[in-house]
């Protein structure tokens, strides 16, 4: 399939040069089908979901629930009740950190996170530990950026039941390495410990089957899978979603309300307090359809791998280049490359590249502890999508060389 033509943003010119968008790990561009549905719902079906009998509300509700069904199918969740809409990955993780920890985390207990976590899968746990008098334990990455399943096993054994949950990223937004989540989950379950997987990056690069992974929670954002911002998903196993207390109160999350006692709505509405971002949720349907089509297209997938290999090889030729996240099995690396170049500060590189029409990310990329592990405060990150091309990669490498020469 022709990927570029369905993403109108890619036609943009930046400072008179064609846009090369290499910041897909932050936010992906949106296909025309998503833009169309967004527009159509705003015009034709702008009514509050789940609340009224009139036609607009009914259509909006149908679109919202169609979005949920699309998500359910995309991640192979067993049922609608396992798919909770949130405002994004961060909100999903905060929901679990608040509700799970309130119920299951006590003084002296621990939450285990990996060293490679985005701040969104770290700070909510710190906050929860603070509230409950618990502490955080960190599973380190090695020099290559990899996590060790054996080390997790050792930690769980040593903790003697005090680790109550493991929170780990499917793919780090810095290292671009697909973590062995299925194995990590299996080990944790041997100790009866549930696992939350941060799927912000995993959802778009891997085919996610939450039942096969057997994780207890899986969190991701719409805006990284071609849907709008302000919408995200928390997949949870029924057992946990049932046992955890509600997150926020109000709106559709109730069954009956009286001043003495309120009972809660059945899943998933129990966790969906207040009017939801139903237009964005509905857009999951066309967004995930696009994602599926792009992932299933062998030519595009081959191209992604070719771009990855090209960039790794060409960047490696630049003097002073250091790439973060080089797994022993190179196939575990997604086309997301974070790097530094000796003598050229990341923000300077990004600023010069921007002037050449190239969008990359620079800075601490929301993973300060991980960067510190590698002795950095800041990196440049290029992250690719199926609509990028090898020609763009060539332009990027040439532009980067030029920027490095200017700075050194």
């Amino acid at each position: 399939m022709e990927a570029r033509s369905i993403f109108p943003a890619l036609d943009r010119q930046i400072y008179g040069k064609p846009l090369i968008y290499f910041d897909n790990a932050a936010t992906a561009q949106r296909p025309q089908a998503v833009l169309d549905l967004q527009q159509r719902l705003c015009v034709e079906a702008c009514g509050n979901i789940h609340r009224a009998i009139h036609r607009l509300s009914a259509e909006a509700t149908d679109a919202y629930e169609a979005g949920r069904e699309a998500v359910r199918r995309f991640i192979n969740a067993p049922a609608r009740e396992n798919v909770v809409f949130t405002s994004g990955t961060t909100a999903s993780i905060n929901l679990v950190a608040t509700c799970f920890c309130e119920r299951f985390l006590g003084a002296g207990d621990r939450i285990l996170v990996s060293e490679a976590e985005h701040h969104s899968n770290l700070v909510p746990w710190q906050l929860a530990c603070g509230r409950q008098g618990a502490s955080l334990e960190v599973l380190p990455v090695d020099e290559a950026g990899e996590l060790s399943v054996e080390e997790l096993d050792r930690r769980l054994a040593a903790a003697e039941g005090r680790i109550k949950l493991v929170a780990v990223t499917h793919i780090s937004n810095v290292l671009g390495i697909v973590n062995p989540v299925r194995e990590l989950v299996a080990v944790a379950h041997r100790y009866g410990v549930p696992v939350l997987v941060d799927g912000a990056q995993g959802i778009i690069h891997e085919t996610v089957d939450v039942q096969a992974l057997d994780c207890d929670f899986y969190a991701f954002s719409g805006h990284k899978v071609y849907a709008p911002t302000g919408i995200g998903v928390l997949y949870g196993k029924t057992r946990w979603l049932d046992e955890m207390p509600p997150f926020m109160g109000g709106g559709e999350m109730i069954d009956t309300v009286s001043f003495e006692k309120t009972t809660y709505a059945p899943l998933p509405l129990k966790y969906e307090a207040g009017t939801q971002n139903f237009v964005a949720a509905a857009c999951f349907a066309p967004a995930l359809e696009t994602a599926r089509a792009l992932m299933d297209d062998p030519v595009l997938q081959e191209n992604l791998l070719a771009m990855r290999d090209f960039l790794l090889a060409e960047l490696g030729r630049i003097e002073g280049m250091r790439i973060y996240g080089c797994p022993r099995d190179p196939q575990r690396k997604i086309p997301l490359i974070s790097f530094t170049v000796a003598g050229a500060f990341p923000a300077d590189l990004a600023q010069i590249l921007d002037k050449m029409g190239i969008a990359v990310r620079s800075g601490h990329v929301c993973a300060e502890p991980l960067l510190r592990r590698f002795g950095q405060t800041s990196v440049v990150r290029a992250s690719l999508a199926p609509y990028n091309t090898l020609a763009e990669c060539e332009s990027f490498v040439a532009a980067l060389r030029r920027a490095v020469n200017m700075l050194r």
Partner: protein
Amino acid sequence: MKTIQEIQADIVEEFSVFSDWMDKYEYLIELGKGMPLIDEKDKTEANLIRGCQSRVWLSCRAEDGRLHFAADSDAIITKGIISLLLKVYDGQTPADILAADEAFIGEIGLKENLSPTRANGLVSMIAAIKAYAAAFQAGTEEKPRDLEADVVAALRMVYDPEIPVNVYDMGLIYDIQADADGQVFIRMTLTAPNCPIADDVVAQVREAVSDVPGVKDVQVELVFEPEWTTDRMSEEAKLELGML
């Protein structure tokens, strides 16, 4: 020395020769590379301005009513822009710094770098420069405060012959007023009314204060209301008298 406006005009003129952004950035990078670094010892946590993209250090020193700045950044383009800002502000008076703006950065086409969302520390750095200027200006306007400090220093040299602690730290001084003309008024007490050497101590205070440079006239009022108690003594005084 040139005014802020003149220096800004010079910079705008300098940049007008660059037709494309590339030349402009190369020039900025050169500026950044050439800029004298801040003293390593001044790269302290207190002088650090943290941005998401880069860090900036700024230190400030006052000399003869003018402010001198040194700064650094780990990002070289940011550093280049810093060097432009320092060219403008270094050696200027606090009043001129406070009155100036940074519109020239927009005129030379680098406005985006000063956007608050850039997170490169520049906006915070400009705020810090202005804060130094404001603080310094406030300090100079309250010049009589310095006179007061000198008066306090003089009072610390005066002792009640019975007590090994000076009158100030004993808490015997209730009020000091020093105005810009060098008129000083002091209200004080003694540890006990009917103190036989009362006149002596008051005379010593008057003498010590009138010796302070800038003081033209001293009035001392002796009061016994409110009554002096040991609560008025400084910690050091209590320590000295073995009361702690």
